[in-house]
């Protein structure tokens, strides 16, 4: 079972819900893989405190020209839609920050004068957080593209082993990094707050997860009691199940500010997270039936 935790709006409690769900399930004996896919601001490790014993640099393959063979024909520049390679007189310039690593210039060079080298954009780290297998990606400061890091993080950890439950913690927003995180998930858990901003961004995230990717979704309402009834009305109208509510509680805000997870600070929430998982499993089963 692969669960992506997303929100649209930032700061609604994605990491809070993802880490507490993981800890509750792992303590209950479920095999668990946790991947922090918010590679721009990876925070889950601050809460799960894994022992990170593996690290590797990752990025994309960018072209490097072998000038013994290059005839400056300009074919590489012609096929590059990103304008990441340019032929100027007897020079070929490569702009790594524009390159997406598609390899088209290499394939199209008539002289076979281009080979590819790794352009490092970030790193992957992994290890154990107690019973939880943990991995995250870190985009280097100043780099623009998060998607290649997320893609490699998922490929590395999700290729073979069956982990029981895999939890993917997404970044805020609704564009390509979030899509890359949700791709291949069985369920998207949307954490929102009952405010106009929360509702507005929830709608957009439902469009991505349910309408574009065709995945079942469910909602966790965090800071319940603040704001207005908009989220409840929207979910009722759209047939989106509200699977859990976490009340507005200054104690929770304070515990989390200090790096504690919700279930560490308030263990009485453990059964609620186990119940949340059961409800997710039911939603996935009925979605598959409908399909």
């Amino acid at each position, binding site marked *: 079972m692969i669960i992506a935790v997303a*929100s*649209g*709006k*930032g*700061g*609604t409690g994605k*990491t809070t819900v993802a880490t507490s769900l993981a800890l509750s399930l792992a303590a209950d004996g479920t095999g668990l893989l946790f991947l922090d896919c*918010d590679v*721009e*601001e990876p*925070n889950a490790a*601050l*809460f799960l405190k894994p022992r990170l014993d593996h690290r590797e640099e990752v990025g994309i393959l960018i072209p490097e020209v072998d000038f013994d063979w290059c005839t400056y024909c300009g074919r590489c520049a012609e*096929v590059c*839609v*990103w304008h990441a390679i340019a032929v100027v007189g007897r020079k070929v310039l490569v702009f790594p920050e524009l390159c*997406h690593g*598609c*390899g*088209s210039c290499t*394939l*199209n060079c008539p002289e076979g004068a281009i080979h590819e080298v790794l352009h490092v954009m970030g790193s992957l780290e992994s290890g154990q957080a107690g019973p939880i297998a943990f991995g995250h990606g870190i*985009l280097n*400061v*100043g*780099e*623009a*593209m*998060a998607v290649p890091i997320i893609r490699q993080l998922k490929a590395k950890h999700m290729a073979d082993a069956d982990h029981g439950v895999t939890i993917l913690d997404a*970044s*805020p*927003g*609704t*564009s*390509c*990094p*979030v*899509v890359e995180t949700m*791709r291949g998930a069985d369920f998207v858990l949307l954490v929102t707050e009952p*405010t*106009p*901003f929360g509702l*507005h*961004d929830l709608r*957009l995230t439902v*469009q*991505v997860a349910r*309408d574009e*990717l065709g995945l079942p979704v469910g909602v966790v309402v965090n800071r319940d009691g*603040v*704001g*207005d009834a908009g989220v409840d009305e929207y979910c009722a109208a759209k047939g989106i199940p509200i699977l859990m509510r976490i009340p*507005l509680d*200054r104690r929770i*805000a*304070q515990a*989390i*500010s*200090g*790096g504690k997870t919700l279930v560490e600070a308030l263990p009485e929430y453990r059964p609620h997270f186990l119940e949340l998982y059961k409800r997710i499993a039911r939603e996935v089963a009925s979605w598959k039936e409908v399909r």
Partner: protein
Amino acid sequence: MKQLVILSGKGGTGKTSVAAALAHLASQEMPIVLADADVDAANLELVLNPTKLEEHVFMGGQVAIIDPDLCQLCGRCYDVCRFEAILPGEDTYWVDSLACEGCASCVYQCPEEAIHVEEQQAGLWFRSDTRFGPLFHAHLFAAQENSGKLVTLVKQQGRLLALDEGRELLIVDGPPGIGCPVISANAGADLALLVTEPTVSGVHDLKRILGTVNHFQVPALVLINKADVNPAHTAGIEAFCRAQGIALVGKLPYDTVVTEAMVHGQPVTAYRPDGPMGRALREMWAQLRQRLNGAW
């Protein structure tokens, strides 16, 4: 004309609420322009109640399209695609348009010339009027790429109008994170206001967004929101700012009045001007205004 960008690294620290309050306060003293650079979750319009004046189509990247009549199922496109965007079907390969980056690598490799790329409409952008000044904002369609390009467009339109009409300040409400749309929102700014919160995540993310604005040589100021939630972390951020030589321009309390104001579609400084939150924001604006004067 000065350009102020509001960033945070971590989401949900209060960027948009601060941007709306600044729009309210700054517009009482000078003509301003606003740009919402969080194009995949644009929220500034929810508190500014804009009247849309213009709507424009935003063309994003291109997507590959395979002609099923020409496809001979050789699989060459599948082999060369590095984005897992080509999927095998029974009679033809097909393109997952959400995964396709539009690199056109498959176009050149297809021996049947069965593939071409087409530009896609990726969103809309708007010029609107608000009671505080003109607002440029956009909606990137769900699951689209190229948010950086749309951010640049929205900001550029705001800048051009500010220059044309002699408006003194462009306020850019930025997206969370440190990647492509953030780099676009930050480009060309005179000052970056970093809104943080005294939590382990807030502190961690502040350091990364500060590294990002430093990398692009934009001077940064720090504002601590929800400062009383964790006094120890607030003190830590203050010490960090002193050590880094970064001005701290204010501390805001943890106060649900921000949410109340949002529900009423108003900046908190207009909704409850004389509460602790309204006062703290006005003091922050006075500080910020001095810094901007220095940059003038």
